[in-house]
């Protein structure tokens, strides 16, 4: 993960332990980030079982959920992150 000063994308992925959906989501989002946002992103993976209070604060209901905290507006992606096209559109990496 890149820690450069010019971080443009702050992402937070909520997962539920090592459930298949969660494992898949982590793999999928990492691939997307590496491919499209290399050096321009900060991805934090949070296990809701470990940090339920964070989940509450971020209004997490479904898992896996990816939050795009920056740039604004806040975006939420729910699912195992397998719909790459939709994520790219949502992250403004692809024109709609």
């Amino acid at each position, binding site marked *: 993960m890149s820690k450069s000063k010019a971080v443009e994308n702050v992402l937070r992925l909520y997962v*539920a332990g090592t459930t298949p959906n969660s494992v898949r989501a982590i793999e999928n989002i990492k691939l997307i980030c590496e491919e499209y946002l290399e050096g321009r992103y900060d991805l934090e993976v949070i296990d809701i079982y470990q940090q*339920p209070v964070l989940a509450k604060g971020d209004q997490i*209901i*479904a898992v896996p959920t990816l939050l795009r905290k920056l740039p604004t*507006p806040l975006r939420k992606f729910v699912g195992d992150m397998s719909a790459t096209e939709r994520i790219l559109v949502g992250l403004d990496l692809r024109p709609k």
Partner: protein
Amino acid sequence: MPKQNKTNKSVMIGLTKCPTGIQGLDEITGGGLPQGRPTLVCGSAGCGKTVLAMEFLLRGALQYNEPGVFICFEETPEDLTKNFAALGFDLNDLISRKLLDIDYIRIERSEMSETGEFNLEGLFVRLELAINTVKAKRVVLDTIEGLFAGFSNEAILRAELRRLFSWLKEKGVTAIITGEQGEKTLTRYGLEEYVADCVITLAHVSTEQIATRRLRIVKYRGSLHGTNDYPFLIDEQGISILPITSMGLDHAVSDEKISTGIPRLDTMFTGNGYYRGSSILVSGTSGSGKTSILSEFINAACKRGERCLFFIFEESPAQVIRNMRSIGIDLEPWIKKGLLRFHAARPSLYGLEMHLVTIHKQIKEFKPDVVAIDPISNLMNIGTLKETKSMITRLADFLKASIITGIFTNLTQSDSLEETAVGISSLMDTWLLLRDLEVNGERNRSLYILKSRGMKHSNQVRELLLTDKGIELQDVYVGAAGVLTGSARLSQEAVEKAEALIGKQGFEFMQRELERKRKILEAQITAMRTEFESEEDNLKRAVAEEKLSEKVTVQDRADMGKLRKADK
């Protein structure tokens, strides 16, 4: 915070119940909601789902020491806090005392996109967090259908809901899940499919512009429950449900009799008045003295130191007090002493059921010995006869069960035997009928006892007089001229008095005449005797003279002989 610790009769053995603490709900559910299971509460918008659910938590926390978790999908905790402050609950206080936790779940579809498979583990985790925070025994999800607005994958949602409900059961929490009413189903998204143990529907029904809230238990697996539509109201003390039809007829009765306040009426009931805890109906036409009869009874009860609750539906308390003072009944001191309370309301102010609930609340609060309602017929204007009858039935039952003497007036239209009154009279133990008798250009009040269960009573019609010293009952004139009242009675009585006087005078005259005749007779006897005596005297004298003269004659002869020297 009002405390209402109710005794809960458990109808079923085997199923543990979780008392809600909501007034009336525990009675109709036979003790509360199924312990450790979810209950579905559904109804249209604004019917009171959230209030019911929240009150379940609050009462649980405050009365049964069972902390609760409120998961809201629609209102923010700030809104909830504000709304429930109006009902007298301080949510923030409960939260700080760890008796309540609120988690607001905000679902914004516009900022969310679905990118493959997911589940609602986040919801579970947050729920568990909240439950653990306060060690909750009770959970409310209000309304979980909000989820359907946030996610398009209904298949996942439904599977997750099923999982959620079994998870709640596993947790052993007693839960209320609320749901919006659907068009053909109980809830819009068919939640009843998942919550199979207990389903309660709420409705807000409006008839003739008067709205009434109603609650019904559609289903309660493994338990007996009331099946009716129960009216309920939401006021500053939360929800009150009227479970009155669930009452049986097994109440205790009192043998004590209490004075009617009218001595002559007491004697009509073999000297002692009404039974305590009985229901008395006073019916009559307008202006026949119904309120006066009630006031006399209330006055007498207050004199005995009993508490009276007087519901009036057509006058103001001040008006009643003034009017009763004019017949010598002063109710005001009793109000000051706190023995008497008036409750005045326009019948059309709210629905029939609401009236009943209000009456109940007042009774529970004031704990009276006597409840008077003047008149119940006014309530008929706002409901159908059947509704009114059912309401009065429930009220009469409730009063009897609490051994409170209930006295009701009923305004009747005509002197024909009161069709409306017939409907409710069967519930009444004692029925006094007041009638106006119109004869010879005047109207007079009369009273008789139509029935009085369980005691001998006079069958006589009495004339009712409103005097400066209260109600007086007079015998009506019953004689050859029929039953007479008022001036007709007075004039008839005068006629009889005159006749009696004449008769008396005649007798005295005859007595004097006889005396006089006797005196004349006696005088005559005396005269005759005097006459006789004088005659007797004369006769005696004559005899004596005769004897003397005879003697003289003999002497004379002898003398002559001597003189003549006659030889013999």
